[in-house]
């Protein structure tokens, strides 16, 4: 019965999105306070009903109700409880329900934390979010209901994909979704601003914390995904440039550009139409990502549903969303023209270049991702674009961006003078170059110019990021959350660059055959296989080897890589054995038996690889700190900082 109750709740939740959208948009247009108040009620109701639907589905998983098709396909009575609950979003239907729940949560958050925003604006934003929820709820109800019954009921389920049986799976999708969907909030704000015909610094101040928080979730989601792929796929890569990864990375890049563009819009009242365009693009790319993943046009771990009607629905949804938003933009953008100028050397210029480079990088990735699909769709041959393209194409715009970051952080608005900071920046650059040379020559050994440049840039950016907070602390000046956040985020980027430069330059790996008693060597470490035996897990059997790692006769670690076979789906899985230290990882993965007690093994040495994720999480932390700045919470009635408000008399 609960399953039907869940289905019913979902239908009601869909029904409530319609009044939410109507009263939100119409109430604001005709200035009817009662209608606008109704919108809030609809938001709360929609949230409660979606949550009920979600809990009902989760309960079916918990109780092993294999009379539900979706549960029978994605769970099993032997599956540990934790994974049974997480299996709720382990495949297409359930993950969409999670998507809707997250959307409802964001909408509720906007309704709850909008006390400082005029009712008309909030109402419009909630209305637009209602339309988006309506689209997704309809999508679930018409093409992907997780509540369908299976008759006769299955005796046991087909189990969750073993790849997904990992703690990383429990948090990665919700994080990723929260990020993706969070971008619908700046999107809705952009639509609201265009409908109102008014966009000023106050508007930017409303949008900034929302954009930051969405970006923080997206950053964490992508980082967790990368980390999960690294250890769960067992082969030690942290980024593969596959279509699904790119689909999540493109909205991230645009959201990053948006964060920087919003800074200019808030502080100087510039880049208004550009900011709007980025808000629209960021969310559109999120939906495009969903299309790529859900329609089955790309093959990957994520592409679990290849159903043309689903792809078509999302494509239509995308066309309606971005199409109408862009049409509105074309009509309204001329209202947001500004005449304020700025000098070629100023913070505005630097942020403009930052935006151009980020958007350029996104376009290059988009080209590499979509081109093979277009060719395939038009039957012009089958190609794929190799990772080297993405590496080069991404580095070309990112290198100048990293170069400009340190001076850019310290550029003043309107016209940058560098009177006070120039000397320190040059000094830090000197330190960075020395540090880069020391790292690449003395510590790791010469690799290439690019490696040294990478080291030096990382150090320069890191030091430059700390310059401002440190000097303010010394002079006992106040330090706002915005500045701390910016510094922490840029420091995170520096750590990330350091991790990438080291790992990609100095990693080493080898595939070899080893039998118990034999020893192999990699990067100065000796790997000895001491044991080989069978072990049994809750729902899998595995062959486990014991590898003792020594260096100069001294034991460093004992690793236990496994080759698992899950009992239901019979899929073999590689569980790498990882010895983790601050400065490096050692990975051992088991390949296959080669006969005579020998196994093929892959040994890997990954210096500084953890800095990649640590740096990315530090960036996210910076974004979070910046979002807590006090000025976002104070109610602003008049635009105090800039007097370039674009008023509109008639539309």
């Amino acid at each position, binding site marked *: 019965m609960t399953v039907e109750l869940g289905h019913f709740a979902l239908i009601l939740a869909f029904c409530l999105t319609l009044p939410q959208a109507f009263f939100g948009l119409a109430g604001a247009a005709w200035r009817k306070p009662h209608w606008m108040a109704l919108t809030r009620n609809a938001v709360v109701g929609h949230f409660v009903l979606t949550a009920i639907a979600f809990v009902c589905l989760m309960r079916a998983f918990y109780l092993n109700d294999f009379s539900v098709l979706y549960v029978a396909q994605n769970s099993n009575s032997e599956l540990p409880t934790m994974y049974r609950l997480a299996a709720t979003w382990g495949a297409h239907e359930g993950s969409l329900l999670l998507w809707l729940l997250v959307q409802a949560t964001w909408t509720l958050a906007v309704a709850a934390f909008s006390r400082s925003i005029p009712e008309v604006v909030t109402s419009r934003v909630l209305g637009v979010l209602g339309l988006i929820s309506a689209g997704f709820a309809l999508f679930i109800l018409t093409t992907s209901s997780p509540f369908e019954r299976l008759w006769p009921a299955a005796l046991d389920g087909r189990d969750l994909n073993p790849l997904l049986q990992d703690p990383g799976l429990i948090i990665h999708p919700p994080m990723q979704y929260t990020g993706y969907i969070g971008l619908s909030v700046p999107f809705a704000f952009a639509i609201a601003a265009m409908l109102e015909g008014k966009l000023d610094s106050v508007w930017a101040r409303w949008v900034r914390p929302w954009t930051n928080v969405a970006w923080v979730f997206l950053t964490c989601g992508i980082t967790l995904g990368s980390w999960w792929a690294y250890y769960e796929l067992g082969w030690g890569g942290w980024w593969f440039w596959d279509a699904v990864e790119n689909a999540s990375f493109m909205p991230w890049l645009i959201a990053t550009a948006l964060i920087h563009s919003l800074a200019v819009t808030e502080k100087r009242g510039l880049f208004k139409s550009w900011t709007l365009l980025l808000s629209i693009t960021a969310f559109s790319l999120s939906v495009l990502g969903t299309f790529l993943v859900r329609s089955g046009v790309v093959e990957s771990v994520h592409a679990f549903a290849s159903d043309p009607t689903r792809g078509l629905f999302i494509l239509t949804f995308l066309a309606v969303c971005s199409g109408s938003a862009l049409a509105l933009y074309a009509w309204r953008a001329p209202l947001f023209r500004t005449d304020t100028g700025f000098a070629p050397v100023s913070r505005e210029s630097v942020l403009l270049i930052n935006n151009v480079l980020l958007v350029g990088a996104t376009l290059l990735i988009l080209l590499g991702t979509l081109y093979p699909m277009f060719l395939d769709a038009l039957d012009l*041959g*089958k*190609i794929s674009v190799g990772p*080297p393209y993405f590496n080069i*194409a991404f580095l070309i715009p990112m290198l100048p961006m990293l170069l400009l970051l340190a001076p850019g952080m310290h550029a003043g608005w309107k016209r940058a003078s560098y009177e006070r900071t120039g000397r320190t920046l040059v000094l830090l650059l000197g330190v960075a170059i020395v540090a880069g040379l020391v790292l690449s020559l003395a510590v790791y050994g010469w690799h290439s110019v690019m490696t040294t440049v990478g080291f030096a840039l990382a150090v320069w950016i890191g030091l430059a990021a700390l310059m401002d907070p440190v000097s303010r602390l010394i002079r006992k000046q106040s330090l706002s959350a915005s500045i701390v956040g910016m510094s922490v985020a840029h420091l995170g980027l520096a750590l990330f660059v350091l991790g990438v430069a080291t790992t990609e330059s100095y990693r080493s790996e080898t*595939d070899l055959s080893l039998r118990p008693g034999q020893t192999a060597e990699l990067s100065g470490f000796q790997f000895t296989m001491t044991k080989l035996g069978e072990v049994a897990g809750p729902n899998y059997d595995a062959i486990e080897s014991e590898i003792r790692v020594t260096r100069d006769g001294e034991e460093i670690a004992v690793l236990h890589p496994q080759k698992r076979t899950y009992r239901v789906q*019979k899929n073999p899985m590689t569980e790498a054995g990882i010895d983790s230290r601050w400065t490096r990882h050692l990975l051992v993965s088991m*390949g*296959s038996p*080669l006969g005579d007690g020998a196994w093929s093994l892959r040994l890997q040495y990954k210096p500084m690889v953890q800095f990649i994720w640590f740096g990315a999480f530090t960036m996210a932390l910076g974004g979070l700190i910046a979002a807590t700045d006090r000025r976002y919470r104070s109610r602003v009635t008049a635009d105090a900082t800039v007097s370039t408000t674009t008023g509109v008399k008639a539309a």
Partner: protein
Amino acid sequence: MTARQRRMLLVALMVIGVGAAAAFALSAFQDNLLYFYSPSDVTAGKAPADRTFRVGGMVTEGSFHRPTGSMEATFVLTDYSHNVTVRYSGVLPDLFREGQGIVARGKLDPDGRFVAEEVLAKHDENYMPPDVADSLKKQHQDAVRKSQPAT
């Protein structure tokens, strides 16, 4: 220099910068396109001799050989009308086995054998890489057409 000249110089520099970046990116794009060929294409000599490409098909039953304790594997890929012998040294993916559809990336050696740098199989029992499925379908249709007597 007047302000106007300075601005023109700036614009010119930006155009040159963007142009150079685009040229780099597009040449990288061109160099890194990997084409997909079926075993029939490879036997017919359609695949490039000096360039990395991808070949996909089913691993022929009984064709997999690997000396005991060694990493050097050879196997035959087929689209049921032509075969290509593939050599690969390294750890094979978990789902590699005979009768399974796989995709290999690598180059041809002078003897016409394919030396793979990477072998991909998907993490699903029933999965067939879409490229392989398409090329098998095509071979099947061709075979059906040929077997029908001409009228």
